[in-house]
C-alpha cells in the first residue's frame, strides 16, 4: 500500500464513502498535503465510487483546492472592500514585484506562494497581510520588503 493510499483510506473511513462526503474528503486530503496530489484524486474516485471526472469537477470548482504544492512561505493579501479602500491592491502589487510572481503563483524554487483573499473579517486593522499564518495589520507598500525579510524566505 502506498503512503497516499494509506492516508486517503484513513480519511475516507473517517468521513464516509458516499458522495456527500466528497468535499470534506478533499478538504482533509488538501490539509494533509497542502495540495491535491494526482494519485490521491484517483484513489478518492475509486473509494467513493465516483467517476474521476466528478472528483475533478468538484476539485476544480472550489478555490480552496490547489493542484500544485504550495510554497514554504505563504502570503495572503486581503483584498476585502475595507482593505481595498485603504490601499490593499498596491500592497499586493508590491508583493508581486518583489517576489517576482503573480498572485496565485508559487515561485519556481518553492519558496514563496502569493495569494489574495476576499476579506478576513479583521477590517479594523486593514490593509491586512497574513504571512505564514501571522496577521499583520496596517500594511503599507513600504513595509513589504521588511515583511518578506522577516518571513525568513530566501529571494532568488
Amino acid at each position, binding site marked *: 500500500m502506498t503512503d497516499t493510499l494509506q492516508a486517503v483510506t484513513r480519511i475516507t473511513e473517517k468521513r464516509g464513502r458516499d458522495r*456527500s462526503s466528497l468535499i470534506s474528503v478533499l478538504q482533509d486530503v488538501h490539509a494533509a498535503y497542502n495540495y491535491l496530489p494526482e494519485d490521491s484524486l484517483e484513489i478518492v474516485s475509486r473509494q467513493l465510487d465516483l467517476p474521476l471526472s466528478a472528483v475533478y469537477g468538484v476539485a476544480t*470548482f472550489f478555490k*480552496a483546492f490547489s493542484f500544485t504544492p504550495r510554497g514554504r512561505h505563504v502570503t495572503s493579501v486581503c483584498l*476585502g472592500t*475595507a482593505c481595498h479602500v485603504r490601499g490593499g491592491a498596491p500592497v499586493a*502589487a508590491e508583493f508581486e514585484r518583489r517576489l517576482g510572481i503573480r498572485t496565485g503563483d508559487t515561485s519556481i524554487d518553492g519558496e514563496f506562494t502569493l495569494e489574495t483573499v476576499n*476579506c478576513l473579517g479583521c*477590517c479594523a486593522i486593514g490593509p491586512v497581510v497574513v504571512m505564514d499564518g501571522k496577521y499583520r495589520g496596517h500594511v503599507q507598500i513600504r513595509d513589504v520588503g521588511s515583511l518578506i525579510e522577516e518571513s525568513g524566505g530566501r529571494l532568488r
Partner: protein
Amino acid sequence: MIEKVATGRIRSAADFETAKSAAIARTGKLKRWISVCGGTSCSASEARLLKESLEASISKHRLGKKVGLRRTGCHGFCEHGPLVILSPEGICYEKVKPEDVPEIIEQTVINHNVIERLLYVDPETGEKIEQESEIPFYKRQTRTLLAGNKLIDCTQIDDYIALGGYEALVKVLTTMSPEDVIAEVKNAGLRGRGGAGFPTATKWELCRSQPGDTKYVICNADEGDPGAYMDRSVLEGNPHSVLEGMIIGAFAMGAHEGHVYVRLEYPLAVENLGIAIERARERGLLGADILGAGFDFDVKICRGSGAFVCGEETALIASIEGRRGMPRPRPPYPVQSGLWGKPTNINNVETWANVPVIIRQGADEYAKIGVEKSKGTKIFSLVGHINNTGLVEVPMGITLREIIEDIGGGIPGGKKFKAVQTGGPSGGCIPAQHLDLAVDYESLVEAGSMMGSGGMIVMDETTCMVDVAHYFLSFTQGESCGECTPCRIGTRQMVEILAKIKGGEGVPEDLVRLEELAHTIKATSLCGLGQTAPNPVLTTLRYFRDEYEAHVNEKRCPALTCTDLVSFEITDKCVGCQICIDECTVGAITGDHKQVHVIDQVKCMRCGTCHAVCPPKVAAVAKNSPVKVMVS
C-alpha cells in the same frame, strides 16, 4: 442527584430549572470576571498571548478562586482592540498588550485602582471613559444579539444558560405547538437577515405544509461579502443562540436534521460551533428526545471550500450534496425540493439567532423595536474610512447618519464623507445627500442599494467610484460560476469596460454600453449573484456620473486614485530631506541633500509612498490628475 442534573443530561423542564440555577450559581460564585475579546481583529493583535499572560498572572497571585477568565467572542469595538473587560464594574481597557497584564492584576484586580492610560478617550471631549457602556460607540447601539458576546465563553454552555439561553427552547417544547411558534415568529415580523428580507414565518409555514416526514433546516453561514463579518462574530461568540434558533425552527417545521454551512475562511467559527454542538448534545439539548419532550434533532457542520456563489441557496445545497456549487433554476424552491430532494428551509445565521429572542421576549415586545415593515435589530460591520471600525447592532429604521457619525465617530483625518456601500457586491453606493435615509429593507432598495447581510463600507473623498465599481465587478466576475451566459460573459464585458475607463481609454459610448449590459445581466441571470452584480455600477453611475465622465472625457481621476491617471511631482517646497528617496521602493527619486528632489516619471509606479512619507509640515509632493508626464 441535583449535582448530576446540574452538569449532566437535562431530561425535563424541571431539570432545566435546576441546571439553570446551578449555572447562575457557578458563574456568580466568582467575584470578578475578566473577558478578553477573542474576535478576529483582536486575535490578530495577539489577544491569545494576552489570555495566556492573564492566566499566568492570576495563578501567580493565587487568585484562581476569586477571578474568572473568559476568552469570548467579538465585542465589536475592533478599532480599539484587543479589549479587556473587567466585571462587575464593567471597566473597559483598550489596546491592551501582554506587558500591561501585571499592572491590570496588581492595580485593578487586587487594589481596585483604574489604570487611566488603558481607558478609551472620547475624541470629542477628551474625557477618559471607564465604563464600557458609557463609550459612545456602545451607548447608541441596541445590543440584543451581540449582548451575550462579552459574557460568554463558547466552550462553556453554562455561560449561555445563565444568561437565559435555552429558555426559549424549553418554552417551545413544553408549552407551544409548531403552529404557535410560527405564529409568534410571524407576529414578530421577522425577515431574513441574509439580504433579501423574505418573511421568515412564510418560509417556515410553507416548509411545514410540505408532505413527507423528512425535512431539513440549514443555517447559511457562508458569509462571503467582503467587508462583512457579522455572522462570523455571532457564530464564534454565541454559537448556542444559533443552535437554539435552529432547534426551535426545526420543531416548528417538523425537521430532524440540520446543517450549518460555514465559510472556509472561518476556522474559528467551525471550531467554536463544533464545541457548542458537543456541549448541547451532552446536556440533551441536541439529539434524541430533547428535554424529554419526544422531539429529535441534530446538527452537522459543513465547511465551504471558497466559492462565494455557495451563499446562494441552491448552490449551497449542491455543495452539501458533494457536487459543484452551482445554482439551479427555481422553482422548485428548496422549500419544495431542497437537500436530497426533500423540503428544506434555509435561514441566515443572524435570522436564526433572532428566533430565541422572539420566543423569550414574546412577539409584541420584540416588534416594539424597528419600523413598520422591518422589525428588530440588525448587525452591521462598519468598516472602511471610519473612526470606529467595528460591529454595530442598531434598531431597524435608524438613519445612516446616526450609524456613521454618532456610532462610527465619523471619517478619520478630517476628510469628507463621499459614500457608504451597503449590501456587499450585490448592493450599491449611497452618497452624502441620502445620509438621512432610514436603514430598512425598502428604503435601501429605493436608493438603489440593499440591506444585504450587513456590510457597511464607508468611503471618503479619496475613493474613486469608478475604481469601486471596478473592484466589485471584478469580484463578482471572479466568483461567477459560469453556468449562465449573461453572468459569465456579461460581467467580464463590464469589467473590461470599467478597466478601460480607469485606464483613461474610455469613450462616451462606454457608459451607454455599461448601462445596457447592466440591465441585461440583471434581467436574464439565473441566480442572485448575476441578478445583482451590476448594482454597484448602476448606483455609482446614478450618483457619481460626473466622475465617470471626468475619466472618459477629461482623462482625469477626480479622487486621484486610478494610477494610470495620476502623477506625482515634487514641488519647490521640498527641503531635500531625502526621506522619500529612502522609502521609494523602485528608486525613482533622485536629489542631493537640501536640494529639491526629482521623480523619474518613467520609473515611478505611482504608488504614493513619497506622498505619504513627506513630512506634513513640508508637504512637497503633489498628486496630480490629469497626468503630467515630464519628458526629459
